[in-house]
């Protein structure tokens, strides 16, 4: 699909016209392709050899068997086609992912007519395939993963939906553009910020909080928690690793800015910022993101995190 060659481009343009981009599509004769599988060609060879036997031995019953198997194969074309025809594929949820991780996309397959669809495989090119069986008048959801490489908006290639049901002799398939657009966050990599003195420094609000180390309570130790915050006394007493939580940011550098990593490339810097943001969120601290003047509020929580990550992804 991603081929840039001439033939590929022509094919893609043709496909674009034939099966346009849409969030939900009902498969019909316009969008379904039909071709024999390798096994289907084996069947063809069998039929030819059998026909030759029938001719050379003038054997009526071998003729009959040839015709029977041939008709069964032709019926199979019809049945295979009907195993996709009328199936509605809808893109539901596109989750976000960090670069290098897999993007998770949920599709629904629904049978609107009173007929089941068996052995339907969905996949992206070069990705793992997922098998779905849709019972009559029911809806099945399918989750596909798509590998990501770089941050940004990922426009997924067309989804391949195929089936060789019932006999594996005929393959029916379609390439669907279900408008899958995912946001890929930068990969989170720990970086060494330039010391604060060199940087332009944060704003006053942060300074106001500086040093106000208010102990807020204990929570379970999470990986990535600083060892400095482990409540060692509790550990000695109860054998549980607990982390001390502080109400306010510990350091003044909780305003993460691109300039902190001025010495690194933009992509690396964004990755470091991503790490910082995640780290701050994990510690339960307030944090803000400053991307060349595009500054966020000082906040914490899932919503805030997502907003920050999105800013990083789309920068």
């Amino acid at each position: 699909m991603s081929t840039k060659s001439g033939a590929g481009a022509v094919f893609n343009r043709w496909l674009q016209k034939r099966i346009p981009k849409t969030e939900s599509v009902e498969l019909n004769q316009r969008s379904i392709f039909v071709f024999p599988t390798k096994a289907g060609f084996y069947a063809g060879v069998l039929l030819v050899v059998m026909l030759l036997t029938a001719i050379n031995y003038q054997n009526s019953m071998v003729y009959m068997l040839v015709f029977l198997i041939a008709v069964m194969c032709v019926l199979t074309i019809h049945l295979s086609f009907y195993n996709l025809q009328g199936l509605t594929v809808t893109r539901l949820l596109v989750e976000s992912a960090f670069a290098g991780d897999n993007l998770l996309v949920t599709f629904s397959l629904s049978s609107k007519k009173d007929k089941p669809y068996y052995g339907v495989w969905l996949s992206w090119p070069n990705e793992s395939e997922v098998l779905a069986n849709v019972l009559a008048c029911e809806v099945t959801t399918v989750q596909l993963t798509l590998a990501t490489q770089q941050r940004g908006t990922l426009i997924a290639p067309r989804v391949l939906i195929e089936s060789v049901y019932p006999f594996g002799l005929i393959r029916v398939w379609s390439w669907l553009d279900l408008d899958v657009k995912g946001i890929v966050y930068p990969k989170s990599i720990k970086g060494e910020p330039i010391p604060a003195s060199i940087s332009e420094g944060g704003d006053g609000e942060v300074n106001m909080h500086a040093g106000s180390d208010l102990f807020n309570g204990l929570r379970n130790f999470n990986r990535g928690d600083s060892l400095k915050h482990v409540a060692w006394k509790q550990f000695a007493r109860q054998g549980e690793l607990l982390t001390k939580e502080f109400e306010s940011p510990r350091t003044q550098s909780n305003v993460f800015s691109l300039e902190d990593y001025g010495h690194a490339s933009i992509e690396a810097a964004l990755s470091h910022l991503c790490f910082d943001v995640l780290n701050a969120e994990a510690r339960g601290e307030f944090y803000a993101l400053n991307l060349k003047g595009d500054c966020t509020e000082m906040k914490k929580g899932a919503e805030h995190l997502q907003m920050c990550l999105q800013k990083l992804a789309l920068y």
Partner: protein
Amino acid sequence: MFGLFSKSKLESSLVPHRLMKLIVFAYIALLAPHFERIPLAAIIYIALIVSWRLLNIYINFPLPGVFAKVLLVVAMVSLLIVNFAVSLSVNSAVAFFAIVLGLKLLEIKKADALYPYIFLLMYLAATQFLFEQHLFVVLYQVFCIGALFYILLLMHSPNGVVASDGVFSIGKMLMVAAPFVVIIFLFFPRMAPLWSVPLDSGSARTGISDEMSPGDIANLAQSDERAFRVKFKGDTPPPRELYWKGLVLDIFDGQRWSSSENNFITKIGRVPDIRLQKDVSSLSYQVTIEATNQLWGFSLADPLPASNNIYVSTDGLVRFREMLLNTSVYQVDHAPLATSLGKSSLTYADQQRFLQIPRTNNARTKAWVGDQLNKLGSIEAVFASLLEKIATENYRYSLQPPRLGDNFVDEFLFDSKVGFCAHYASATAYIARLLGIPSRVVIGYQGGEYITQGDYVVVHQYDAHAWVEVWQHGKGWLRVDPTAYVSPDRIERGIREATREEGGFLADNIFSAARYNDFGFVRWARQRMDMANYYWQQKVVGYSGDNQSSLMMEWFNSNSIELMASLMAGCSLVVFLLLLLIKHRQWLLSFFHRSSYYETFCQLFAAAGFPRAPGEGPKKYAQRLRQSVPDAAPQIDFITNVFITQTFKASGDKSAPTNINKMIQVQLLQLKKKLK
């Protein structure tokens, strides 16, 4: 890119045990009909392989490694060399194919190897038709093909979802396929064979052989296999006239009679394209003969070939041009002119041939002949006295005659006096030769079972018979059947009756239905089954290029390939449309459906707030409506009554007034007004 082919999802996955089990059973089921063709050693070999695979399935016994595989292949090759090295035949080819398929069972690990294997199994199913094409054989193989498709279906079905449904859907598919198969079968142009193929099927068949020693034919009496069926164009002659000549035995060595006929059989050749002549006399008959793997055919006396696959030998016997591998059809006419031709004289070579006897042996017989000759004076009188001796002295016809020694004619004529037709024929021909009358033993079949419903005669193996032909100057070969003198029943009513007191008919064949012919139902069922098979063989199995072109000429007055192709396409289209209509009959019904007055009536009340409850009968509904809308009661009653009368009375009931439709419309109009 475009993705014409996609990597099979099953390619790398292992075959699940449940599927492999089915494959093994399918192999066994397809192999079973070939058992008689496969040598015992090969069967043991296959049994070993199959049980190995089954052990693998059930207790995870490891499949053979490279070393074991090599051993198995070596074993198979030596097995084949020992058993089949000499003859290239259909039989050995099929046996080889079956064994290799068995060996392949141990090889299958990945699921994608199943596809070619299943198709090879389908081919194995087809190979059985090279040997047998009976109705039940065909049904069995079609069933097997369905089962193989079912295995393919299981391969692609989610676990358990399709298991029970699948059988049904395969059955449905076969049913939908059937009309198309019939159409293609009728109109697919039949070609002449493209190249020569191995013909000899190599397997032994029950039937007469080209040698006869006393007792041979008695063995055939144990077989209820069908030899051939005959349909006469005119009236069917009575059984006593039905002497089906097969072979002439002219060489006698004191024990056995054998034929000097050279039965050279080609191993490779073309399967004939059979054509039956159309302009034949009313004495002609069509014979549907079971495979014999021989060249000989059977006919009444004085045959004249009337189909292209046979000729008449110098001995006046029907012979096939190609070996008889399959059930086949030939047609014979009666040759009236032949009776006078070649009957006036016998060449010197032939005289020698038909007078040859071993020099010594049978002293008592020779003495008896000498005595009789002295006493009676003429050769003919002595020969007649022999037949009289057989008829009057206490000779007995028996299926279980005692064993006889070297001087078997002596022992038979003067000591045991018990024999089967072979004994009588042998002794008679021998004495005729002693007397100097050229004579020969003829073997073939005598009589047959007349199937009234089908107006044809079935000749079974147990009808096998031997008789004598003696040469009379000016008259030619005359038939003399000594068995008729000792046991007229054998000739008039068949071997069953002839051996009724003694028993022994089909004695070893306890399951033979023919043995229980006394029971009316058994006889009826047997004859019906035979008839179904007969028509199957005649009309379906025997449907060849010749039948096709004559059918085409008869129906359409042309037999061009274009016509057949368009017929095939046209008929298929019609069937396809019909199937489509059946599938969408709801839609079709709605298309032609006009809402009836009663529906209008119901709709009117529904609009007024009194819909008919689901399942509510018209009477109950009317009752409810009368209570709700009392002033519309007359209309409600009228329409309900008319509806009930029309629906539940016989359709032929014409008592309703002719203007009933108008009355209904009037009532409906009044109802509309009242409801407003």
